[in-house]
């Protein structure tokens, strides 16, 4: 007996979490070709920041502002020290980011210890929609994912920074000749990707818990979203990728065991890549 509202809401909820988690990765990968295997670790840092803040008595909403900033700084450190030297070596970038993932995870353990931590949920009662009760925090996350997409869109379309970065992506040599500081654009873009990861970490912390391995699960899923969605159109790609991966996972899990559903989704993603190696929205 499928409850239609449950199915649809689950698809939307799963998709929105993936959008928030994967957008940061989509930006660094789509716009810079950088495979950031530290993305999961950065999400974890965001979650721990949220913990530190709520543990100090401040509200979760404060964490939503501070976590992105903190993680952007971590991204800055990564970029300045290592990543900026490796832009012409994509596989090496991938490896270096993995090294960072290991280091970041260990640093977290040193600072916070290894026990699981808790970030409280700001809402307590569900909302009743069309006869089904839906969790308020999930509805909030859905709104957040839409907001994040809008802000990113406006940022890249209408700000001068956005203009410059689109120029750099299209043709960085030309952009350089025309006076844009390409390195600075890359740096800023990497930091934005990191900031979004931080936001994702803070966003999922209340419903997933905070421990050193919080972000790992989102790492592989985010990559599949980005690969399936393609890197041509950042937002459309992330949206479609999230929708496909999240949606199919949600649908399947109503029909079969969770394990089976997850396996099928991965296989499905591989098939999509096989058929359209550039993803749904092809890159230039």
């Amino acid at each position, binding site marked *: 007996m499928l409850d239609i509202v449950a199915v649809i809401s689950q698809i939307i909820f799963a998709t929105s979490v993936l959008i928030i988690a994967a957008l940061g990765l989509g930006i660094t990968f789509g716009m810079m070709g950088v*495979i950031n295997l530290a993305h999961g670790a950065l999400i974890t840092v965001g979650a721990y920041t949220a913990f530190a803040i709520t543990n100090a008595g401040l509200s979760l909403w404060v964490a939503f502002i501070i976590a992105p900033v903190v993680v952007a700084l971590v991204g800055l450190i990564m970029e300045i020290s*290592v990543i900026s*030297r*490796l832009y012409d070596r*994509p*596989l*090496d970038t*991938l*490896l*270096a980011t*993995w*090294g*960072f*993932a*290991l*280091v970041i*995870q*260990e*640093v977290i*353990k*040193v600072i916070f210890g290894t026990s699981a931590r808790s970030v409280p949920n700001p809402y307590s009662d569900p909302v009743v929609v069309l006869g089904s009760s839906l969790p308020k925090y999930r509805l909030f996350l859905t709104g957040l994912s839409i907001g994040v997409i809008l802000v990113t869109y406006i940022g890249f379309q209408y700000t001068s920074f956005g203009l410059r970065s689109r120029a750099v992506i299209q043709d960085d040599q030309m952009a350089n000749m025309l006076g844009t500081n390409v390195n600075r654009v890359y740096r800023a873009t990497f930091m934005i990707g990191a900031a979004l990861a931080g936001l994702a970490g803070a966003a999922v912390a209340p419903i997933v818990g905070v421990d050193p391995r919080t972000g790992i699960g989102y790492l*592989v899923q985010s*990559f*599949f979203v980005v*690969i399936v969605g393609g890197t041509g159109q950042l937002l459309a790609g992330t949206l479609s990728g999230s929708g496909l991966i999240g949606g199919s996972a949600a649908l399947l899990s109503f029909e079969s*065991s969770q*394990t089976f559903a*997850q*396996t099928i989704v*991965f*296989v499905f*993603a*591989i098939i999509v*890549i*096989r*058929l359209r*190696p550039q993803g749904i929205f092809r890159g230039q």
Partner: protein
Amino acid sequence: MVGTIILFLLPLVASPYLSFLAAQYYLFGLLGISLGIMWGYGGILSFGQAAFFGLGAYIMAWSFGLSPLPINPAYIALMIAPLATGLTAGLLGLVLFYSDVKDVYFVIITLALSVILEQLAVSASDIFGGFNGIYVPRMALSIPGLFSIKLINDRLFYYVALLAMLGGYVVCYRVVNSPFGERLIAIRENERRTKSLGYDTAWYKTQAFALSGSLAGIAGALYATLSQFVSPPLTGFVLSTEVVIWVAVGGRTLLLGAAVGSILVNAASTVLSSVIASQYIMILGILFIIVVVAFRRGIVGYIIDRYDIKGKL
């Protein structure tokens, strides 16, 4: 040659415990070589070698589970494992390389393969024994009708593992120095040009991947009977990423680097994890980053470059 003799004489002076450790390291060395041949010479990075290693281990476990058999179950496993893992790798290679999948996508897909296989091994517990794993007895070296020695003595197993690793090394060495190997290197250097010269680059890559898969499978099968326990983490993402680190640190463009790197990192891990558990991983992570940025030929490559004038690859 001197070195080989040292290796063969070691068990005579080392304790059974050290022989066990060494045997373990050699099998990891073989696993490292399996990545090295693909990555160093083909330029293809696989983040899923553990999938083949683990599969080989499970094949060994299943082989013993089917006993009693007329033939030594370990022999059956050692024949089937490389075939099965090689075939799997080959099939995956056919699907992916022929669609011109980008290198970086290949990394993600092989990573996902490890993740899926581990999850499958945990849930399909009837087949894979699930989370709690499968017990594997020590294999026996036997010639039917003549003798059968169970390799309970770790010193004996040391030789088996050493031979396996050296065997794998020799095979790869031959491959690398053959015309096939040259073309593989050419693909690594510039695939488009090699293709335009008329070579079916996807087929070369697939074959390299298949070879890599079967070597990993053999290593896994032997590891299963050495450690006597097979469980899902042997196929998982953590081990897959560890292999990449071993090979990178040792030197990815050299077979020797892959082998030595695997042995060294594991030996260091054995020592240091007893002493400075968590900091060790941090140090390894930092070392890994440094190696990736600055020492592309890894530790072995660095030593070769410093003490040897010739040898530029």
